[in-house]
């Protein structure tokens, strides 16, 4: 094989060190700055930096107008092999092979199929064994790797930052831009380090850490920043947990959140289907080891969080920052210092049908949704199944489990998790975004209250008039069984 004699980079490894530069003389850099610097294609005077994009993930909802734009201007997809498409947002989660009942959704899926054929973009289609939520399959297939720049027309692209990649959501005009040029003009964001010391208690998960952070800094607390999560509690997280944490970065306003790769990352990524193999893998890992913030690197803002101060959280309002511990109460309106925030809380409580001062554990639920790009991975399903084992869903509750991908569904079935869920009275469905955003038929009815492992509790997000409470997978499973929110730390596991 002649290519083995060429330097590693020529074989397509993501080794992004510019030769000739003496890094010993450089000021200490953050992980973000290292990735950024390695992807600068051009820095024209007085303009935004042109950043190279290693991987562009595409789905059916935010891409049709972008492909139309290419056609209208006679452009092509510059790097089809740096582009990976799947269908996730509006596909049904009923058994595959049934026709799609919504003709407009079907048209959008057909448009993606046609666009991928026409422009030569790989597509993991409805009937593919690899289909799944775009942010689940990227890591699962080994197309998401440390040190990359990754974009997708979806705000939860921040998920991929768990690998130590710079990953962020973009709009459809930018989707077209990346399809055509494989680059994006970008203004350099500020950097924030969120340093989580100590250890998360039993029953307190990455989801609770994310909700705790958003509750503290607010839904715009990190606007304009890229967050790097660090500290012992972050290091102790599995890749699934790290993905959950980075996924929710956007809910604090940050476009991206990232975590320096380590042994946990390398062992997850190595051996994945499209990850580097053999010697390439060794070289890749050697490069990935350099991807950590240097000692003394400066962040624009640093936040310290004590993991021991966190509890299982439940949102009570209509944005993810409106959150309290499960053993707490719906806040009193007088607790809000700002008039605008107090009014927002008042409106949220009317929408949510809650009263100030109510204990969270007294709130009964009608529906439970376990799924979404935040919490639909195998570890999430295992955690929920552990709670559900030998129990029964409350007769007043309808509960569904939607695995993030076909691969996760298969893995869960091999472990028998689906049996636990089905025996307990949960629905076990096909993979997709499902009730996280209710673009497919999985929606809440007006007034229905849902314990959801998804990421947004905005008004109408899961269905018009629907009331969403964000929780971890364990907390969702426990609510399904108890019929109301309950503190997982007191759960009696079978």
């Amino acid at each position, binding site marked *: 094989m002649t290519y083995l004699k060429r330097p590693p980079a020529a074989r397509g490894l993501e080794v992004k060190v510019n030769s000739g530069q003496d890094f010993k003389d450089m000021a200490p850099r953050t992980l973000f700055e290292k990735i950024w610097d390695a992807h600068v294609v051009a820095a024209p005077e007085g303009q935004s930096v042109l950043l190279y994009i290693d991987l562009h993930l595409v789905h059916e909802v935010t891409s049709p107008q972008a492909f139309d734009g290419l056609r209208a201007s006679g452009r092509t997809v510059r790097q089809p092999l740096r582009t990976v498409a799947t269908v996730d947002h509006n596909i049904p989660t009923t058994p595959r092979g049934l026709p799609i009942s*919504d003709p407009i959704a079907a048209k959008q899926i057909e448009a993606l199929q046609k666009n991928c054929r026409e422009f030569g973009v790989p597509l993991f289609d409805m009937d593919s064994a690899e289909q799944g939520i775009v942010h689940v399959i990227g890591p699962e297939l080994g197309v998401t790797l440390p040190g990359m720049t990754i974009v997708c027309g979806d*705000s939860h692209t921040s998920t991929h930052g768990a690998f130590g990649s710079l990953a962020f959501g973009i709009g459809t005009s930018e989707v077209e831009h990346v399809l055509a040029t494989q680059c994006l003009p970008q203004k350099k964001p500020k950097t924030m380090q969120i340093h989580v010391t100590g250890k998360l208690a039993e029953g307190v998960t990455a989801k609770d850490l994310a909700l705790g952070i958003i509750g503290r800094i607010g839904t715009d607390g990190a606007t304009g920043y890229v967050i790097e999560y660090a500290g012992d509690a972050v290091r102790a997280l599995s890749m699934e947990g790290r993905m959950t944490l980075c996924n929710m970065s956007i809910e604090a306003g940050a476009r991206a959140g990232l975590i320096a790769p380590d042994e946990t990352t390398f062992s997850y990524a190595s051996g994945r289907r499209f990850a580097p193999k053999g010697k390439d893998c060794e070289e890749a890992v050697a490069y990935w080891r350099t991807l950590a913030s240097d000692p003394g690197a400066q962040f624009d803002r640093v936040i310290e969080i004590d993991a021991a101060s966190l509890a299982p959280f439940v949102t009570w309002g209509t944005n993810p920052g409106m959150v309290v511990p499960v053993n707490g109460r719906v806040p009193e309106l007088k607790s809000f210092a700002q008039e605008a925030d107090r009014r927002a809380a008042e409106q949220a409580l009317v929408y949510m049908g809650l009263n100030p001062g109510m204990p969270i554990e007294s709130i009964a639920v009608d529906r439970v949704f376990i799924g979404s790009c935040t919490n639909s991975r195998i570890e999430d399903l295992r955690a929920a199944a552990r709670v559900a084992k030998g129990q029964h869903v409350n007769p007043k509750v309808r509960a569904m489990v939607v695995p993030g991908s076909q691969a996760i569904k298969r893995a869960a079935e091999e472990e028998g998790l689906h049996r636990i869920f089905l025996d307990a009275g949960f629905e076990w469905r096909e993979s997709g975004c499902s009730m996280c955003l209710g673009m497919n038929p999985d929606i809440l009815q007006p007034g229905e209250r849902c314990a959801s492992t998804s990421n947004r509790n905005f008004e109408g997000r899961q269905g018009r008039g629907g009331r969403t409470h964000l929780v971890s997978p364990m907390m969702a499973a426990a609510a399904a069984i108890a019929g109301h929110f309950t503190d997982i730390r007191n759960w009696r596991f079978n």
Partner: protein
Amino acid sequence: MQPFRKHTGIVVPLDKVNVDTDQIIPKQFLKRIERTGFGEFLFYDWRFSGDRKERAKRIGDFVLDAPRYQNASILVAGKNFGCGSSREHAVWALADFGFRVVIASSFADIFANNSLKNGLLTVRLNDDQVTEIMRRSKEIEDYQLTVDLEMLRVEDGRGFNATFAMDEFSRHCLLNGLDDIARTLRHEAQIAAYEAKHPVRVEMKAILAGKAGF
């Protein structure tokens, strides 16, 4: 893209903080594959009862539907406007409805980026200025503002004026309605050089050979 230089129009106050893109354009309207026609669905769940267009009934009390704001082209809202989903449909809906400017004390990053690509100007003023515009637009019939991107200035001809900041490059692009993609492609040689140094990984080439796609 439609250039933006200077615009005078009626101001409508949306006195809420954290207006997310799910509210600006609810999910049921994201299945269209065109860029146009989103305006009638703007703030749909706040404006209409009934799920679909044909069964829709105007709720009537939403500020956008008040007769005095019918011809508004400037929206003023609370902090963190456009948070949440990256859906550019939110910007398409605002622009299609007739808005040229949104004024708030802060904007979500992706929303602000998307606006820039569509000639919708996002103007950041401080809380006090936003509150004052909000108050005037409620109290004064046909309250108008002039937003001047060349001068980076907002004024109402009634004593209110404010300056705003915008990075020079974004301003230049908006003023001239520049096509982003064409500008990037001027760097073709640099992109090609970068790609020569960093070719596609061999494993990715196997994606097409596998079952994916075709």
